[in-house]
């Protein structure tokens, strides 16, 4: 077990930038190739995490690194404090996995200022990985804010028509939320210090142990929660998302959807909920209601979009609603469903943005009405698009099913039953908008002469999609690979969230469940956490 694996993984892309600076700016191929190599190497560095069985046996933090960073006597102290557990494991893997795919997607799409683009991608990777593995709130905040800068440039420089508006909106929206969180972090720290806790930094585990009065938890949860809700994004704070997604270049949209939105949901699971468990029951009904509204509203708006990319963007709002609902059900099924759905959304929505990118590169339009009958011209594309569509809808056998099913199941078993009833309608709506767009774009006769000569996917494009397809089915058929390593950490986290709580949920013996849900739930029962 490498002692500094997390540091090496996190800062490897940053080192890549230093080398990148010395590659001539007009050598686009080399720049792209080098960046691809760096992201692949980062993925390789992170692979031992995925194969490490320690996550299946212990829900603690592993691969820890701890160095004193800032220590100003009795003023404050911050540490370089890293670690990974079952909750962050798959998000870290998702990040390192999606990055090479995003780089590959830029091969033909980006032709101006390639050097800058690649540098921004690598900086973004460092920031995202850093945010997932930081265990010191201050360090987390630094990485969290750092993510904004590269994404701002990605949207603003390489984006579409309306890119400047979208970039500024994205930046200011997210920054306002995080600035309030910053005050909350500072307040939390000084509250802890002044109430006599012996804080050796902004370490998250030390904050977990605090016993904060309800009133304080309420306000701090609000500050953290709003910040994360903007990032998720939850209705009604989602308005930056369609703009940012639509204007961003394909690679930017993929990363935004696959990883950056997960920062919000991860923030809830890692920070807002376990830090302020007593405030949690107060907020859950409202947040769950917003999640359900997000599901239905996102689906309905997606249905009416004429631009495919906007459609996918709004579908994100809906998908993230399922994640939040699962997480808020505060039981193992729900949390597992929410967590796996984060990964699923990363894979299927990432793939959908790539698909939109493929046809955009061919036709330079994304309007649904411009297409029709592509299936006859692009059979491979049609197949892949079909599989991803099914995954996005949540057809059994694909990853989307496992996640949505378990999230809804968790919600049914908790006191969010009625929310789950309404949320389930979102599954149907998803089928409506996805199948409808698929039908309009792919089926029928080719009516637009411009579509007559479209080429099917190139080898590069197929290579991009294959790993994603692999995980669509892997998670769909045998999710236990993933659940087994998440469960111990999730149980620990549920204990933390349920602290001071009298039986939030009763764990029912689940009825016969198909596919992976069964295994995960079965696994969960062996370690059934006590919530009293």
């Amino acid at each position, binding site marked *: 077990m490498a002692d500094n694996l997390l540091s090496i993984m996190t800062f490897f892309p940053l080192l890549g930038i230093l080398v990148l600076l010395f590659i001539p700016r007009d050598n686009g191929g080399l720049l792209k190739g080098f960046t691809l190599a760096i992201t692949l190497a980062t993925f390789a560095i992170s692979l031992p995490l995925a194969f490490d069985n320690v996550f299946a046996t212990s829900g603690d933090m592993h691969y820890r690194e701890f160095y004193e960073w*800032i220590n100003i006597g009795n003023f404050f102290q911050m540490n370089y404090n890293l670690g990974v557990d079952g909750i962050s494991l798959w998000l870290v893997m998702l990040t390192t996995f999606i990055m090479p795919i995003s780089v590959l997607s830029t091969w033909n799409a980006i032709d101006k200022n390639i050097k800058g683009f690649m540098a921004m991608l690598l900086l973004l990777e460092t920031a995202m990985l850093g945010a997932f593995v930081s265990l010191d709130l201050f360090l987390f905040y630094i990485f969290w804010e750092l993510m904004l800068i590269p994404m701002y440039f990605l949207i603003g420089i390489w984006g579409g028509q309306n890119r400047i508006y979208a970039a500024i909106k994205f930046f200011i929206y997210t*920054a306002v939320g995080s600035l309030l969180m910053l*005050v909350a972090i500072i307040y939390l720290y000084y509250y802890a210090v002044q109430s006599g806790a012996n804080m050796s930094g902004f370490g998250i585990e030390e904050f977990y142990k605090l016993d904060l009065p309800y009133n304080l938890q309420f306000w701090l949860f609000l500050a953290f929660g709003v910040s994360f809700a903007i990032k998720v994004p939850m209705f009604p704070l989602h308005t930056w998302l369609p703009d940012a997604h639509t204007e961003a270049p394909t690679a930017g949209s993929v990363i935004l959807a696959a990883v950056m939105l997960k920062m919000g949901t991860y923030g809830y699971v890692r920070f807002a909920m376990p830090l302020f468990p007593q405030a949690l029951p107060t907020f859950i009904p409202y947040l769950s209601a917003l999640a359900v509204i997000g599901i239905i509203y996102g689906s309905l708006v997606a249905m009416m979009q004429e631009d495919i990319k906007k459609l996918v963007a709004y579908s994100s709002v809906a998908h993230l609603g399922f994640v939040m609902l699962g997480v808020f059900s505060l039981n193992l099924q729900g949390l597992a469903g929410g967590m796996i759905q984060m990964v699923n959304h990363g894979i299927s929505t990432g793939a959908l943005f790539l698909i939109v990118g493929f046809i955009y590169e061919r036709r330079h339009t994304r309007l649904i009405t411009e297409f029709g009958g592509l299936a006859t011209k692009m059979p491979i594309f049609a197949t892949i698009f079909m599989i991803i569509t099914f995954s996005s809808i949540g057809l059994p056998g694909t990853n989307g099913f496992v996640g949505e099913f378990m999230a809804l199941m968790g919600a049914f078993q908790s006191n969010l039953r009625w929310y789950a009833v309404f949320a389930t309608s979102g599954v149907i709506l998803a089928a409506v908008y996805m199948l409808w767009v698929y039908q309009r774009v792919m089926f029928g006769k080719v009516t637009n002469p411009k579509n007559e000569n479209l080429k099917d996917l190139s080898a590069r494009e197929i290579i991009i999609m294959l790993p994603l397809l692999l995980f669509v089915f892997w998670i769909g058929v045998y999710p236990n690979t993933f659940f087994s390593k998440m469960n111990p950490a999730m149980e620990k986290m549920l204990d933390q969230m349920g602290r001071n709580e009298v039986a939030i949920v009763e764990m029912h013996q689940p009825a016969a469940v198909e596919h992976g849900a069964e295994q995960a739930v079965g696994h969960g029962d062996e370690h059934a956490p006590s919530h009293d």
Partner: protein
Amino acid sequence: MENLVQEAMQNVNLQAIMPSLVLCGFGMALLMVSVFSKRGSTAHVAWLSLVALVVTGFVALSGWNNPQAGFAGSVLYDNFAVFFSLICLLAAGLTILMSDKYLHREGYPVSEYYPLILFTTAGAMWMASGIDLMTIFLGLEVLSVSLYVLAGFFRRQVRSNEAGLKYFFLGAFSTGFLLYGVALLYGVTGTTKVDGIAAYVTANPAAVTNTMFIAGGVLLLVGFLFKIAAAPFHMWTPDVYQGAPTPITAFMSAGPKAAAFAALMRVAIVGLDGLQSEVSSMFWILAVLTMTVGNFIALNQKNLKRMLAYSSISHAGYALVGLVAWNKIGLSAILFYMLVYTLMNLGAFAVLVLLGKQSEENLTLDGIAGFGYKKPLLGVVFSIFLFSLMGLPPTAGFIGKFYIFAGAVEAGYVWLAILGVLNSAVSLYYYLRVIVQMYFKSPEEDFAWVSINAPVAISIAISVAGVLYLGIFPNTVMNLAKLAGF
């Protein structure tokens, strides 16, 4: 009065004023050098001034952990003074580095410019080490008089004339306020020493409600608030900042401001400690007003110098937050923030110095469209300064703001901290707009006139290295700032 003079003469401790003495000595010598130099040759004076600053820096450093008091308790050269002296010296050094080519470009290659900067800096150092209101006033005047000249240095440019004149008139008024305040305080307490005033208040708690005492204290503070450009005493700032030579604008926004903060902190926290709740709540309002006015007016500026002028007003507001906190964290935070602000603001101005054509009509938002593509390195560096001014990690601007707001929250001023971060959010917009112009617009100009010369490059390199170093490894300097607080 004669007693006072005699007392002071018995207490001579040249070590306590040695840094200023050295700097003034260099300044006068360089004035003579200028007289005997060929007209239009200025570079040697510039380099000699830098040597003077470095030598003074070492002299100043000898006072670290070795406090020197002298002149009957009117000067105290302690860690606090050392820290501020070094900030002023740094500001002066960066300013001189970016000046030489600039003076030639604008057609004023006059070497007296440099000794004037040295005198200003000496005045600033006096202010930081003064613990007698008269010493502080003396420092303030030395600083101001040189600055009036520097602001109007381009004597045939109307804008520069306007800047000089405006600064002079309003500066004179504010000095009047300050002296009036000193007189009133002397009338009540019978002393001009800062600690003497504090001792008087401790002995006579009733003084706190004495109208004359309060009026004196307020007038005194107004004098300083004018220098740090806190709203509503900021009206002079935009015109003076826009009209003055760009390096002088940069210098004004950092060095004299830091000195005025030093004096303000001493006077408020040591002298007016008895009035803590009143003064602190006054600063509360002023801090919010200053941040808000600065940020909201900056939103609508097209001229970059003017925008940075308003931004500098808002940064004075952030620093005032540390003063409201009135605790050790807040005080050290101001020290740290002044250093950070000096680095990032002078860095940004150094880029503007390079970017301007003669008479600088092109320093507008539209004038820099696509700049980032034509001059990639300068573009990246300018962006780093802007992100630091926004207060985003991993730059020093973030750490500085964190330190300030930590002080406020620790003292219980959560709302002030919230208003502060919301103000930061507003400021994002106008800084981002510069980046939008630099990177998101296509270049209309070739920016061929932008040529990087070594001195400016050094100045920018120091600033950017400082901004990143203090943003990622702030520990050492933060601890020094802690030791420098009193």
